[in-house]
C-alpha cells in the first residue's frame, strides 16, 4: 500500500532521517518506535507529503506521491502530536470546520460528526469549547478530526502524549477497534513500548534518524535470544555499584531507575553469583534479582545502549 524507499531528510549537515526503508500493507497496524528526536515525526511528515525529502521516494500503490500527493491525502487521516484544533471553538464546530475542508456537506457531514463523536465518546461535550477540555478529551477530538472523512490509512504521531491512563487506554482500544472493524491501516508512532506491543503487528525502530530494527514483535524480540534481561532492586542505589556493573565485561547494557538497575547479560553467565559478588564489594543491600521476559524496551536498550525515554 505505502512504501518508503531510502527516504532521507537533511537540514544542512544534520540528518533528521537517513535512508529509511519501510512499507505498510493494507489492514495492518505498523508501529514506528523511537525516543524523542529519533526522526519519527520527520518521517511521518515526508510520507504524508507535508515536507519534501532530500532524497528517496514515497510510493502509494506503486506511484510516487512526491509530485502529486492528492490521491494519498484523500485517503489519509493524520493525527499530529500537537493538539491541532481551535481551542475557541466547540468540539462540534471543530468537526464541522474540518469536515467542510474535507468536502463533507449537509447530511453526510452531520452523520459523520455524530459517528465520530460517538466513537471518541464526546457526544455529551459536543457544545463545549475545546479550551475547557481535559488533555485526554482534546487528544480524543484530535483523533476524531482525522477520522471524519473515513480514511483508509490513519497516521498517528504520538497520540497519547501527556494524558491520563484512562484516556490512553480508550484511545488504544479505539485504534484497535478501527483496525479490526473497519480494516483501517494504521501507522502508529510512539516512544511507549507497551502501546506498540499492544497494538502493532509489525514494528520499525528508529534512533538518531536511522532505522535500527524492523520486523514483527517476535522477530524483534529474537534479537535478544542469546541474552537475558535482569532487573536488580536495591535498598539504596549508589554510584559505585553502577560503575562496577558497567565495568564488568560480561554485562552488555546497564540502565538505572529509582533504586533499580536493569542489565543485559549473556545467557551462559552465572548472573546471580556475579551480581551478589559486586553487591558485596560495593556495600549495596539487594532486595531482589529478577530474570525478565524480553520486552521491546530491552531490545531498544540492547540496540542503542539507552532506554527509550532517556
Amino acid at each position: 500500500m505505502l512504501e518508503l524507499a531510502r527516504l532521507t531528510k537533511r537540514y544542512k549537515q544534520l540528518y533528521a532521517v537517513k535512508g529509511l526503508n519501510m512499507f505498510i500493507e493494507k489492514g495492518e497496524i505498523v508501529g514506528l518506535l523511537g525516543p524523542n528526536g529519533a526522526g519519527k515525526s520527520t518521517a511521518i511528515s515526508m510520507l504524508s507529503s507535508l515536507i519534501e525529502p532530500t532524497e528517496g521516494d514515497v510510493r502509494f500503490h506503486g506511484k510516487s506521491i512526491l509530485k502529486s500527493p492528492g490521491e494519498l491525502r484523500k485517503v489519509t487521516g493524520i493525527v499530529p502530536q500537537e493538539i491541532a484544533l481551535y481551542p475557541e471553538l466547540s468540539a462540534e464546530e471543530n468537526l464541522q470546520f474540518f469536515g467542510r475542508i474535507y468536502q463533507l456537506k449537509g447530511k453526510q457531514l452531520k452523520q459523520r460528526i455524530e459517528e465520530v463523536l460517538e466513537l471518541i465518546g464526546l457526544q455529551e461535550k459536543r457544545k463545549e469549547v475545546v479550551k475547557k477540555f481535559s488533555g485526554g478529551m482534546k487528544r480524543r477530538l484530535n483523533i476524531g478530526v482525522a477520522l471524519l472523512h473515513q480514511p483508509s490509512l490513519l497516521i498517528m504521531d504520538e497520540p497519547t502524549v501527556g494524558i491520563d491512563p484512562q484516556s490512553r487506554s480508550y484511545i488504544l482500544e479505539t485504534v484497535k477497534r478501527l483496525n479490526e472493524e473497519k480494516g483501517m491501516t494504521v501507522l502508529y508512532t510512539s516512544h511507549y513500548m507497551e502501546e506498540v506491543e499492544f497494538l502493532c503487528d509489525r514494528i520499525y525502530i528508529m534512533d538518531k534518524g536511522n532505522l535500527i530494527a524492523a520486523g514483527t514483535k517476535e522477530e524483534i524480540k529474537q534479537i535478544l535470544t542469546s541474552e537475558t534481561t535482569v532487573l536488580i532492586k536495591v535498598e539504596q542505589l549508589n554510584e559505585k555499584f553502577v560503575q562496577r556493573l558497567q565495568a564488568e565485561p560480561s554485562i552488555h547494557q546497564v540502565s538505572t531507575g529509582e533504586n533499580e538497575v536493569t542489565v543485559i547479560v549473556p545467557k551462559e553467565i552465572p548472573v546471580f553469583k556475579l551480581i551478589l559478588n559486586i553487591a558485596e564489594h560495593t556495600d549495596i543491600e539487594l532486595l531482589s534479582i529478577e530474570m525478565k521476559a524480553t520486552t521491546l524496551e530491552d531490545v531498544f536498550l540492547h540496540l542503542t545502549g539507552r532506554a527509550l525515554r532517556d
Partner: protein
Amino acid sequence: MIWRIIIKQCQVLLRNPMHLLLLFGLPLLLIVILGTALSGAMGEDVKDVQVKVAMINNDSPGLGLQQLVEEKDVSAQEFAKLQTAVKQYAIPSLLDHAGKANATLLTKIDDRAPQNKQAILQDDSYSALIEIPKNFTYDLLSYIYFDKGLPPGLQVYINEGLQFEANTILNLLNQIQERWTEEKLFLNKNIQLEPQYYKEMESIGQIESMNQRVVTSKGYYTIGMAVLNVLFIATTIGFYAFQEKRTHVFNRIILANVSRWTYFSAVFISGTLLGFIQLVVIFGFSWIVYGVSWPNISAFLIVTLLLSLAVGGLGMLLTAISYRNNSETITSFFSSVVIYVISLLGGSFYPIGDFSPLIEKIGDFTPNGAGMSVYLALLRGESLSSVANNLLFLVLFIIVTWFIAVISFPKRGEVL
C-alpha cells in the same frame, strides 16, 4: 472553501472577547477621550461670545456732512466720496460687520434714546454702552479727509460684571480707531486704497472664511483612530494565522488537499472583511453619537474598501513573513512598535503634518496616513480626484504587499 475558512476566522475572533474589545471597543473609547480632550487644541473650545451693546447716538451724520460741505466747498465727486464714508464709518455699522464676520462673536446693538442712559447703566444685561458724541461725523471726516483736529472720542461705559464681553467691545473699538488713523495716513500720502482694504476691515477677528466644511475634533479623531486601529486587524489576522501554523492546524488544512493559495487568499479576504466591518462600526458610531457624516457616501465606501484591502494585504504579508521565519516576532513588532510610529507620522494622534510638510509627506506614504488624508478631504467635502495621489498609493500598497507576500510565503515542502 475560502468562505469556510473566513467564517472560521470570524468565529475565532467572536470567541475572543479581549480581541473584540481591543479591536472594536478601544477605538470608540479613544475617539471619545481624544476628541473631547484635544478639541481645545483644534480651536473648538472658543465659545461664542454674546455681546449686547446699547448705543446712544447724539450725532447727526447728515448735518455733519452738510456742515463740512458748506465749510470746505467740496466738489460733487468729493461729496459722493464723503457720503460713502459717512455710511462706512458709522459705528453701529462697523460693530455689526465685525460681529457678523467673526464666527464666535454675536453682537446685538440696541439703539437707545439719550434719556434712557441711566436705565441702561442699571441694566446688567448690557456689556457696554457706547455714546456717540455730537458732531462725531463732522469731526471724523474733518480729521481723515481734511487733516483737521483730532479723531473724535467715543464715550464707552463698560459693565464690569461682564468683563470679557466688555473687553471684546473695547478691542473692536480700538481696532476701528486704528483703521481711521491708518486711512488718514494713506490719504495724506496720496495712496489709493483698494476695495479689499475695506473688506478686510469688515472681517476683523474672522477665524473661518473657507467654503469647505469644518472638520471637528470628533471627526478628526474618528478618522485618526479608525485608520490606526484598522491596522490591528492585520496583526490579529497574522497572529491567528501563525497560531494555525504553530498548532499544526495549517498542516491539517493542507493535508485536506486545500491549496496553500486558497488558505492564503482566505487570510487576505478575512483581513479585508474584518477591516471593512471595523471601519464601518467606528464611522457608524461617530455618525450616530457625534453626527460626523460624509457628504459623499459612495466616495467614502470606495475609500473604506481600498483601505480594507490594504489591511488585508498587510495581514497576508505579516502571515507570509511569520510563516517564512517560523516566528511571530514580525507581527508582534509591527503591532507594538510600527503601528504607533506610522500612526504618529500619519497624524492619527495629532495633525503633526501641520508642523512639517516633510512629516506630512512621509505620513502619506503609510497606508494609515494615506487613508487619513483621503478621509479628511472627503469630510471637508472635497472630491476623490483631489486626493488621487493618496488613492494611487493605497492601490500600489495593496499590489506590493500581495507581491511580497506571495514570494515570501513558503512553498510546498517548506512549511512544517
